[in-house]
């Protein structure tokens, strides 16, 4: 029952944070919109109308049309799907890898820990963005590759966080007790240490989603992210930058979408951190 007590405390604290709640609501709304995209958008995401290109926002096209006459609102909404998908899959991969490496490294320490942490250091030395650029140049353009690559280059922070938690957790009395009862390492790690090490991971993952969304937007902006005609916020922005002087709607709306979404994730991430931190009492 202790568990549900903590959950209640966490929830109360989180709910009291108005910014975090606003962020959470935004994310929920974003999910709903992107799930229901085909039902709420009046046009198809790649439906062209070459006789109405670069039309300013109007009743028919709330966010205007792009350089091929596609509805910007529709594309921004479909773009949300890409961004959310990328955010979650990439972070899922990063968290999975980072957690396992952090657990192993922290629990076994010694040589293994040394080696793994040096690998982390090496990975951190690479400027991640350029590593991604280089790798993508060799692969076919595909959203799956992008998600995987962002995931594969983003696990180091999680690994360090988890390792740090595990280092302190494995010395606790309860772990000693479980070990005395004859539990195997796997059981100790996954059943008894992991659940207690998860809170920093949760924070880092939430912030990571924001980072992954930004990375994907940047890649698409550079033209090597999500291939056309699939809309993503980054490639809508790219298409718009050429016309920024007179077709502001093409850059403003996807830009706002990125800003708001990333902000929402940060607010939620911060909210979770504050709610989990026992030292922060109001």
């Amino acid at each position, binding site marked *: 029952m202790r568990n549900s007590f903590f959950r209640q405390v966490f929830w109360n604290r989180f709910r009291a944070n108005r910014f975090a709640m606003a962020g959470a609501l935004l994310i929920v709304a974003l999910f709903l919109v992107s799930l229901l995209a085909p039902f709420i958008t009046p046009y198809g995401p790649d439906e062209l109308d070459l006789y109405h290109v670069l039309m300013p926002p109007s009743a028919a096209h709330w966010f205007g049309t792009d350089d091929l006459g596609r509805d910007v609102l529709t594309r921004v909404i479909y773009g949300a799907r890409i961004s959310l998908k990328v955010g979650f899959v990439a972070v899922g991969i990063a968290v999975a890898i980072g957690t396992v490496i952090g657990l192993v490294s922290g629990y076994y320490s010694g040589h293994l820990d040394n080696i793994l942490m040096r690998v982390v250091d090496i990975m951190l030395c690479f400027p991640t963005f350029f590593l991604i650029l280089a790798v993508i140049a060799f692969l076919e353009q595909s959203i799956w590759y992008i998600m995987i690559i962002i995931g594969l280059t983003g696990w180091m922070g999680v690994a360090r966080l988890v390792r740090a938690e595990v280092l302190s957790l494995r010395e606790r009395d309860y772990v000693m007790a479980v070990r005395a009862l004859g539990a195997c390492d796997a059981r100790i790690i996954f059943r008894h240490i992991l659940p207690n090490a998860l809170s920093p991971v949760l924070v880092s993952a939430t912030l990571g989603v924001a980072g992954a969304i930004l990375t994907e937007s940047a890649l698409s902006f550079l033209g090597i992210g999500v291939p*056309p005609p699939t809309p993503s916020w980054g490639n809508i922005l790219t298409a718009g930058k050429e016309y920024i002087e007179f077709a502001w709607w093409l850059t403003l709306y996807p830009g706002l979408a990125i800003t708001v979404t990333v902000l929402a994730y940060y607010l939620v991430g911060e909210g979770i951190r504050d709610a989990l931190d026992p030292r922060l009492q109001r």
Partner: protein
Amino acid sequence: MNRGGIAFLVMVLPLLLLAACDRERGSSPPPRKGPGMPAYGDAIVAGSIGEPSTLIPILATDSASSDISGLVYNGLVRYDKNLQLEGDLAERWDISRDGLTITFHLRRGVTWHDGGEFTSRDVLYTYRVTIDPKTPTAYADSFRQVLKAEAPDDYTFRVTYARPFAPALESWGMPVLPAHLLEGKDITKSPLSRNPVGTGPYIFRQWVAGQRVVLESNPNYYEGRPYIGRYIYKIIPDSSTMYMELKAGGIDQMGISPIQYQRQTGTAKFASKFNKYRYPAAAYTYLAYNLRNPLFADKRVRQALTSAINKKEIIHGVLLGMGQVAHGPFKPGTWAYNPDVRDFDYNPQRAQALLAEAGWRDRNRDGILVKNGKPFQFTILTNQGNDQRLKSAVIIQYRLKAIGIDVKIRVIEWASFLSQFIDKGNFDAVLLAWTITPDPDIFDIWHSSKTGPKEFNFIRYMNPEVDRLLEQGRSTFDMDERKRCYFRLQEIMAEDQPYTFLYVPDALPVVSARFRGIEPAPAGIGHNFIKWYVPKEEQVY
């Protein structure tokens, strides 16, 4: 700048390359300030998306390289502003009665940029190295028609052909290379590829990879020293960045996009700082199908693809109407262009019927056509930095999806696009453009013998009748007969659809208003570049 008989793969619309001007439509605003006095000095900064590949012209196939080497080298002949051949390094020439022998009388006193004298030895060397099988060049073929080339003295060069060869004279527009620097050396390893020495109006000074190429005016140029002191070719791989540079005064000349032409350059402020020009470019954009791929082997499939593409819509949406529909490889209005040939206009029903006839059906009802268990899927490749091509590709993708064909688009940086995909025949379909040369001899692009690596028939189009017409069209001086050949050729191509010929765009160059002396002509604006000048009081560099 005007290169005879040479076709180039175009990255973006070339700046100075020839482009005939339709007087009705070509517009050239009068200079707002007085013409001022011609004066030496100043510099012109031209913007380019692509970087030259090599500055040895016989090894280059891209328009960026030819932009530079057009200013550094000369040929024996060149096209004047009305697209008539005139002497360049050859002062004059005699053609024998049978048309088989041309004797060029070379200009005396022309010097190479390093001080050496230009003689017939240089011409002979250029000829020999071009036909050398070890030289990887796409331009050997017209020189291979030569039976005998000789240099009886330092200022005479004579060539004899075995059979009449119509583009013979034009083919000597090929830039002449300096024999004294190259003879006996491996041309592919020559430092001249990055440090050329020519006879032209501009001397090569510097090439900073990925940034700029700097040329300086040649005080000893045989036509007189050019007014503009330096020519800087600035490489900016993104057209909107380039446009901002133009407006900020960082560059003086670039080809703008139709959208920029129509929506961003109409202001009085722009008009006071720049002159803009518009004329049909001597280039056509096409979607080429790799005929090694069994997917495109059936003519009906290619016809269906063309039927499913709405060229008018592409011109409207991408070029904002500033271009013409292409039905074949020639420019509308030129003598070789067959106005009666119409290929397949937009008709998706016919496209579907043709595909069904060829065995493609939507068997599993997922919207994608299937034959022998394989879905109809292919990738269109195009080069990075050309927004118009990418947009055209997206429109084509949309239209083909409507008839059940799944198209992917891949954008690749120019150098690896040529080396990894085009040269190796490693592609399904490419969206590219060719320059249209004044002489209609398009042997190099379509003849079945031109399918080797680095050659221009990279789609491996082989049609015996086309081969025969190409041979016949170049081996007679009789204009009517040539016309018949090329007219028939267009009929066959309209039927065969080895390419879907998309459009002939308008060239839209913009030049800073401080440059005077620009004369729009059928050859575009680059023909009198050495006569452009900036009045002393307006010089900025």
